[in-house]
């Protein structure tokens, strides 16, 4: 099997995740889509590491995971506070930056 397939898959997932970020209004789902994108990139990294035969790619993926974890924590905290303040998890409701 052509190793590039993994990359194709990664690209596909990444794109899907991105479109999800753009389409969904629910902050949590948007956030999940971000996670999806991160995972897609991780897949690509892992595949790269196998392609090149060294572990640096996996290290990158590892760091990505760590950072993702941190990001999730903070992000979810933000969502919760957001929800508390305006009783809704819709990203469109937090549109005070207009004009």
């Amino acid at each position, binding site marked *: 099997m052509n190793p590039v397939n993994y990359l194709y898959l990664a690209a596909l997932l990444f794109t899907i995740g*991105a479109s999800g*970020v*753009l*389409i969904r*209004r629910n902050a949590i789902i*948007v956030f999940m889509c971000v996670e999806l994108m991160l995972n897609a990139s991780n897949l690509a990294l892992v595949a790269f590491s196998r392609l090149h035969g060294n572990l640096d790619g996996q290290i990158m993926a590892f760091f990505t995971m760590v950072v993702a974890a941190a990001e999730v924590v903070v992000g979810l905290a933000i969502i919760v506070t957001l929800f508390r303040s305006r009783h809704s998890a819709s*990203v*469109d409701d*937090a*549109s*005070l*930056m*207009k*004009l």
Partner: protein
Amino acid sequence: MESLIGLLVGAPLLGAAVLLCGGRRLDRAGHWLGTALAASSFVIGLLLFADMLGEETEQRAMHQHLFSWIPVNGFQADVAFQLDQLSMTFVLLITGVGTLIHLYSIGYMEHDERRRRFFGYLNLFLAAMLLLVLADNFLLLYVGWEGVGLASYLLIGFWQHKPSAATAAKKAFLVNRVGDVGLSIAIMIMFTTFGTFAFGPVFEATGETSEGKLTAIGLMLLLAACGKSAQVPLQSWLGDAMEGPTPVSALIHAATMVTAGVYLITRSGAIFNAAPDAQTVVVVVGAVTLLFGAFVGCAKDDIKKALAGSTMSQIGYMMLAAGLGPIGYAFAIMHLVTHGFFKAGLFLGAGSVMHGMNDEVDMRRYGGLRKYMPVTFVTFGLGYLAIIGFPGLSGFFSKDQIIEAAFAKGGTQGWILGSVTLLGAAITAYYMTRVMALTFFGEKRWSETGKDAVHPHESPKSMTIPMIVLAFGSVFAGGLFKWNESFVHWLEPVTQFEHGHSPLSATAVTSMTVVALVIGVGTAWLQYGRRPVPAVAPRGSLLTRAVRRDFLQDDLNHVALVKPGEYLTRGLVYVDHKLVDGVVNGTAATVGGASGRLRRVQNGFVRSYAVSMFGGAAVLVAATLLMRAV
């Protein structure tokens, strides 16, 4: 001796400075100071005159170089004076008559609280006028030229509270400015042609350039002269200028300033001699103005305006003579001087009459005044005889010479000019007789009772003495000058006199002049002396009415210049505001609107920002791929 020349100008200038900046504390003595300085300037003039007579005919011209005025590389203008016979003639006339009129004004302006300033202006005028005639280059002359313009502006508008006076002053200055444009352009042409505008070098170099340039210069100088000397077509201001106090009319608008044009043309005779076309134009202008002024003089009921018309006409004579070239210059100046005497005398007389008649100027409200103000009557009468050219009086000699010279021009031109001058003489006699009759003869058309009651009385000494002196001048000056051609020879070094060959003998011309005079006087006497004169002017024929309005000159200007000008400026103001400024503000508005629309893109929705981010990322990827591909 030369060093005194500067003082000629300096004395009155000092007077002006002191009187204008001095403040109220000078109110009591100010007029005496002004008169004294004018007189001192006259005395200096006499000293220089005596000194000049001592010299040889050829060495008489004096120079005084004060300092370098405007030194810019090629362009060198100096403040330097040149006192030759021509200038000397003017100096004596200006300072002499000027002093007399200062004296006269002391009495005339007695009740005016701004008398100090009046004398300041008079001194300023003297200084400027002397600068004009003493300058040794055209640029300095230009300074004097505009200086007298300023002085006349200030003096015409002296009674500024009268709107009519203010307007007249403005008008005078503006019309003069038109002439000044001519003078400045003439100077520019001189500079580009000769590289200088000092009298000597320019006049010497006339031979080295084309006639066309000289004609251009000549015409421009003529334009200037027309403005200053109220010649057609720039004559319209002189009549209104009579709004000023009478002494002003006498000094500036009769004796001295208005004759500056004649001085200019005589002075630059060298240029005109080399430019016959320009000369012809000068002659034509002179002839036209001669008749124009004469007609106007016939129609006016305002005594000063009648005299103003006559001034125009007399200066027309001078212009004409000056236009004749070397055969005329001397006579032009001679007539100028004699005219200075008798016209000043006449104006002072008129002023004295007005003084006695509560400043009434309408001659139709005078009449039979000879009994009430004898001195005025006599002096005015002598002036009258002089101006109409009564044989033996000064006007006779000078005018007769001019008529002769006009015939001497030769050819049809000569005949035309001669007859015009003769006609002018007749008309002069006519309107002056009219003035005389209306004012001093006939039954009185005023009442000593009623609301506008007047009590005619003789004027104080300070006014009558100058009149008497001037009367003497107007009686004897001509004869003195004519005495074995003394005046002509006196001026010859400057204006190189040559005898014209008249087709008619001198006696013939003289007799014709006398005939014309008799005709004029006779008709006028029949019309005004015998029959009673209506106190209110009859409507008169169309021509009369036209002439009363200076041949509709002002209406013409109004229609041709003032109205269009007003519309033009209004239109331009609108254009500037709407169009020029509109473009600017329009641009600003466009930018503002555009950014306002662009602002809507910032809708605050995270997701639309995300879209643009993602799109940007896509573009970047595309770019990198393209880079690869290329």
